[in-house]
């Protein structure tokens, strides 16, 4: 835990000075302390030698600022730049950091001058180190990629984090060089890296935390100031469990998440800025100008997102978002199985030679896919080391055929997103293509075709747009203003998934629909299903399925003190609130009969209350309580219409 102690007054609770005794491993980054001058004439001694990143519980306060006048220091508006949040995009394959430098967004480079760093953590001997400052290998240096694929490194954290062992994506990850074990009972999967010829266990969350510590350190060294606030980009399809796991990893790394931003939302903010600047140079004024609608298609190694945004006057409003776990990893897998139909046999028994062969084939296939973006056919020559040599030509048509399912899903997402936003292809002004996979010719032609456009929007770097947007949001949300007006903008985010509760019969009733602007507050009235029912279960789910079992269970609690009444007459109000920090709270309680006053104090429950998406908790609830505590909807015309 990084700890901030002012030089003049050495005040800090003793408890914060010692690492938790249960913490099995401590990671020392700097043995010495670093001193930073602060604008308000204080001096902080930076101590990261106490940094403990393993298995401590998420603390409310991941860091501590002590000063003369204030013990919390959090609400004090210090110099804005000191608290300026940086933007981080942790991709499935690559990662980047960007920061507002006072005039524009700048991407940081690692010691090897790379802006896009490979996302992985190498576990070797007794120390685990992510290789951000020294690593972050590019795809062209096969030796390092070979190391990453040796079983000693964990990568693809973003695909694994926050998922249960019943998840098909976790199952599909079993063909990676490190161990992904599932017991199919709806708990966290077991993952392990090879250290000294032993498979040592870890968790995706821990791996991400180690990686983030490396990124944080790198940024602190370069920016010569402590970093605590971050805006992190996430895929659209991340559910609340995945978001919470990411936030916990940040907390473990000593970072405070100012905003989690779906990647296309970050791109939308960058687009809003560019449009704003264009308007200004055209008209020389800050007029809101005409509205421009853009479709953003983002596909990286792990996820595919589609969003539509309406932009005017620097305000970008997300109209709709769609996303799924689909990306370069899936394309790579399709190609691997196409090249070697018995690819499964390479990893089933975890023989070291087989893992090596698998790694070599992965590198060759990845390279071929990249080259196919500009060539119609590529030659693959790879010696798998076990006597097998692969020499063949892969044609673009072949590549497109084996990945037909991927393209079909992309198409479906775009159509759904357009339908959700009530837009036709003709309404779209710009098509923005970002993410590594957007360079695949078939994907470009598919997206442009569906949007009836000849060419894509220019002026954005496909690999830097999301992190640039995140850094802009970091500056805007940190309260930084720019005299030239480059930060006079706003992105209004939307909920990617619906939130609601279970009703009698197992149906799902959304209270906050997907694509609702955040922050949001919505309420609905429900009623009892039994005569004289005095208690009701509020079971909260997230998702788009009509039945609850298709969605993610967030948690549950009981509303009590429902006035005695025949079924269908008592009124139970359920209100859901998402604040700026994306925290979900559910308020519920019974109303006095025939009034709009509460019968007794309401319950306020922060969701999720569950630690993971345990589907079996829902089964246990049904088994124990049957339908005795069920609620049901009341007709729409009886719902209160007021804006509350």
């Amino acid at each position: 835990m990084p700890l901030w102690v002012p030089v003049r007054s050495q005040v800090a609770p003793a408890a914060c000075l010692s690492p938790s005794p249960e913490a099995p491993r401590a990671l020392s980054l700097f043995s010495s302390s670093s001193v930073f001058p602060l604008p308000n004439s204080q001096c902080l001694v930076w101590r990261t030698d106490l940094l403990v990143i393993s298995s401590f519980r998420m603390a409310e306060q991941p860091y501590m600022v002590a000063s003369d006048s204030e013990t919390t220091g959090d609400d004090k508006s210090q110099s804005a730049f000191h608290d300026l949040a940086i933007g981080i995009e942790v991709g499935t394959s690559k990662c980047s950091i960007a920061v507002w430098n006072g005039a524009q967004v700048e991407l940081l480079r690692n010691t090897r001058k790379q802006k896009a760093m490979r996302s992985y953590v190498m576990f070797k001997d007794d120390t685990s180190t992510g290789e951000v400052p020294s690593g972050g290998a590019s795809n062209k240096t096969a030796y390092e990629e070979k190391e990453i694929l040796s079983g000693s490194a964990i990568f693809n954290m973003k695909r694994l984090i926050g998922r249960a062992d019943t998840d098909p994506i976790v199952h599909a990850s079993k063909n990676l060089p490190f161990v992904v074990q599932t017991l199919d009972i709806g708990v966290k999967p077991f993952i392990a890296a090879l250290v000294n010829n032993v498979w040592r266990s870890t968790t995706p969350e821990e791996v991400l935390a180690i990686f983030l510590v490396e990124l944080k350190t790198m940024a602190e060294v370069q920016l010569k100031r402590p970093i605590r606030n971050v805006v992190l980009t996430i895929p659209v399809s991340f559910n609340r469990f995945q978001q919470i796991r990411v936030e916990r990893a940040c907390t473990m790394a000593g970072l405070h998440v100012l905003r989690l931003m779906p990647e296309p939302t970050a791109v939308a903010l960058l687009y809003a800025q560019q449009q704003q600047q264009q308007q200004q140079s055209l008209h020389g004024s800050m007029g809101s100008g005409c509205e421009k609608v853009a479709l953003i298609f983002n596909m990286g190694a792990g996820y595919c997102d589609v969003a539509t945004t309406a932009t005017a006057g620097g305000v970008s409003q997300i109209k709709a978002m769609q996303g799924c776990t689909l990306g370069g990893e899936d394309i790579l897998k399709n190609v691997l199985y196409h090249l070697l139909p018995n690819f499964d046999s390479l990893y089933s028994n975890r023989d070291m030679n087989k893992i090596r062969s698998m790694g070599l084939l992965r590198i060759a296939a990845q390279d071929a896919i990249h080259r196919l973006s500009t060539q119609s056919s590529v030659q693959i020559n790879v010696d798998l080391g076990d006597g097998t040599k692969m020499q063949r030509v892969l044609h673009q048509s072949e590549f497109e055929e084996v990945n037909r399912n991927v393209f079909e899903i992309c198409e479906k997402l775009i159509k759904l997103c357009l339908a959700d936003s009530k837009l036709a292809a003709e309404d779209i002004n710009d098509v923005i293509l970002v993410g590594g996979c957007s360079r695949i010719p078939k994907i470009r032609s598919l997206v442009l075709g569906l949007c009836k456009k000849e060419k894509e929007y220019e002026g954005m770097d496909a690999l830097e747009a999301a992190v640039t947007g995140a850094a802009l949001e970091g500056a805007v949300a940190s309260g930084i203003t720019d005299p030239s007006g480059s930060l006079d903008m706003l992105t209004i985010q939307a909920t990617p998934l619906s939130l609601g509760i279970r009703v009698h019969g197992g149906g799902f009733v959304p209270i906050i629909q997907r694509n609702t602007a955040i922050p949001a507050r919505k309420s609905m009235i429900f009623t009892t299903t039994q005569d004289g029912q005095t208690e009701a279960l509020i079971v909260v789910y997230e998702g788009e399925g009509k039945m609850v079992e298709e969605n993610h269970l967030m948690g549950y609690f009981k509303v009590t003190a429902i006035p005695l009444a025949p079924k269908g007459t008592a009124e139970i109000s359920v209100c859901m609130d998402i604040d700026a920090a994306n925290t979900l709270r559910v308020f519920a309680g019974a109303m006095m009969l025939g009034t709009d006053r509460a019968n007794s104090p309401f319950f306020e429950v922060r969701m999720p209350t569950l630690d993971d998406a345990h589907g079996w908790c829902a089964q246990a609830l049904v088994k124990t309580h049957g339908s005795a505590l069920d609620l049901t909807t009341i007709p729409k015309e009886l719902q209160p219409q007021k804006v509350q």
Partner: protein
Amino acid sequence: MDHYKTLGLGRNATKGEIKEAFRRSALKFHPDKHSQSSKEVREGASLMFKQASEAYEGIGTAYSVQLLVMLARDIVEGVARRAGSSD
């Protein structure tokens, strides 16, 4: 409950005017614009944002721009009152 009746508003605002009004209230009340504000102001603004967006979305294009303007005024006054009383 009829918003128009309650607030005595006309129903003739154009779609563009409604969008514009929503954007203006978003710029005023969105949490991103209140990171340096006091807790009271920030929370008041956040509530106002929720109401404005619910109004915008709920009544959609039929919604009067004047309601949003009125709402905006209420918000500013409300926030100022709350901020004043807490000092």
